[in-house]
């Protein structure tokens, strides 16, 4: 099934990242500088601008569908401080 192939690909990628990190000594410089975060800091790029609304609509979905979980998300933003 496609699922197994995808899982194998992700595991290989994961191992590659880890090996690179350990062997390479890992001096990866962040490629988006803190002063280049203007777009990320824009409110339209927020993953969850209205928590009260997203919580409600997630509930509407969960109550009627068999699937549940993996709906949250954090990250992006201005990265200040």
């Amino acid at each position, binding site marked *: 099934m496609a699922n197994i192939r995808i899982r194998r690909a992700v595991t290989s990628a994961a191992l590659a990242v880890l090996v690179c990190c350990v062997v390479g000594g890992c001096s990866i410089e962040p490629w988006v500088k803190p002063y280049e975060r203007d777009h990320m800091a824009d409110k339209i790029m927020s993953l969850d601008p209205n928590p009260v609304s997203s919580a409600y609509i997630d509930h509407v979905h969960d109550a*009627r*569908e068999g*699937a549940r979980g993996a709906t949250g998300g954090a990250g992006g933003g201005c*990265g200040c401080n």
Partner: protein
Amino acid sequence: MKRGIVGLLLLMLASTGVAGVLPEDRADVLLHSYDGGGVTIQGPSLLVRKQFAQKFSVSANYYVDKVSSASIDVITTASPYKEQRTQKSVGFDYLHDRWTMNLGVISSVENDYSAKTFTFGVSQDVFGDLTTISLGYSLGNNEVRRRGDATFHDTVKMQSYRLGLSQILTKNLLVGLSFETITDEGFLNNPYRQVRYADSGSPIGYSYEREIYPRTHTSDAASLRMRYYLPWRAAVSAEYRDYHDTWGIEGGTFEVGYTHPVDRWTFDGKIRSYSQTKGNFYSDLFPRSHYQNFIARDKELSTFSSQSISIGATYDIMKGGWKFIEKGSLNIVFDHFMFDYQDFRDLRTIAATPGTEPLYNFDADVFEFFASFWF
């Protein structure tokens, strides 16, 4: 997996650096309305969040569902009813260096079901704040009762494990991956719902009996999401979620959205498509009584699809501030859902041969009106 999560937690705690930021102080008042398939649900949702001492953020939410149900299940096997569900939750965020910890309690009560859930989460920004790693755990204890049957009482224990990774790939592109495994134990079905089985002795050709569900359920969900900033100041988003569980249900969700700001307005549009295959022990019509160990006729476990479109508008108010309020917004969101069932039939129609009734489908309209204030 549990040892892995503890290990990750320790690694995150060991990492130090400069501090992050807590969520903004705000208050939101939402009015919600759902109307579809013979069910109407309305109510408010209030949310308040406030920071203290630059290290803590406390939030509280009060949510009510006033339900008026004459759904397909209710009108074919029972009578329409009204009830109210009230949910209160409190959350506590603590910021230390680059990591944020959150604790929460959610309590939900209705006349035949009560749920209490504790949640815990940790998140950390690494790689010059380009990467956010988060872990979460929840534990829930629910009590199930049945109206009109004082002798019935059972419980459900729920645990959820969450892992999230979000990555800023370019100045304009944010992607996120998240995983969630949920396990339930206990009385997992609706205590009123019935299955139907072919019964030549019955005038309509079938009879009802109570559902019997397994006492355990484990599900895995994985989702990939992205958000991209468009050059003319707009954003496009996409999300895909894959779901499967020990009951044999496989579900896939795909959603795309577009956000466009114009002066004080912001417009959002989304299209969402969900489809799932049926659970192992689901059937619209069993061949005979107690056909197998587990029997269910909950349309949530059937093969179906749900398509929806959503449009929303936000208007910024109080831009210059007003007393202690920094800014505010007025919002309206409208969602239209179309549910189509492949193996759940509409029993409001009596068919000559049971099992040939038309397949069920219904549309639902959801409205949200809310005002948000930041202070």
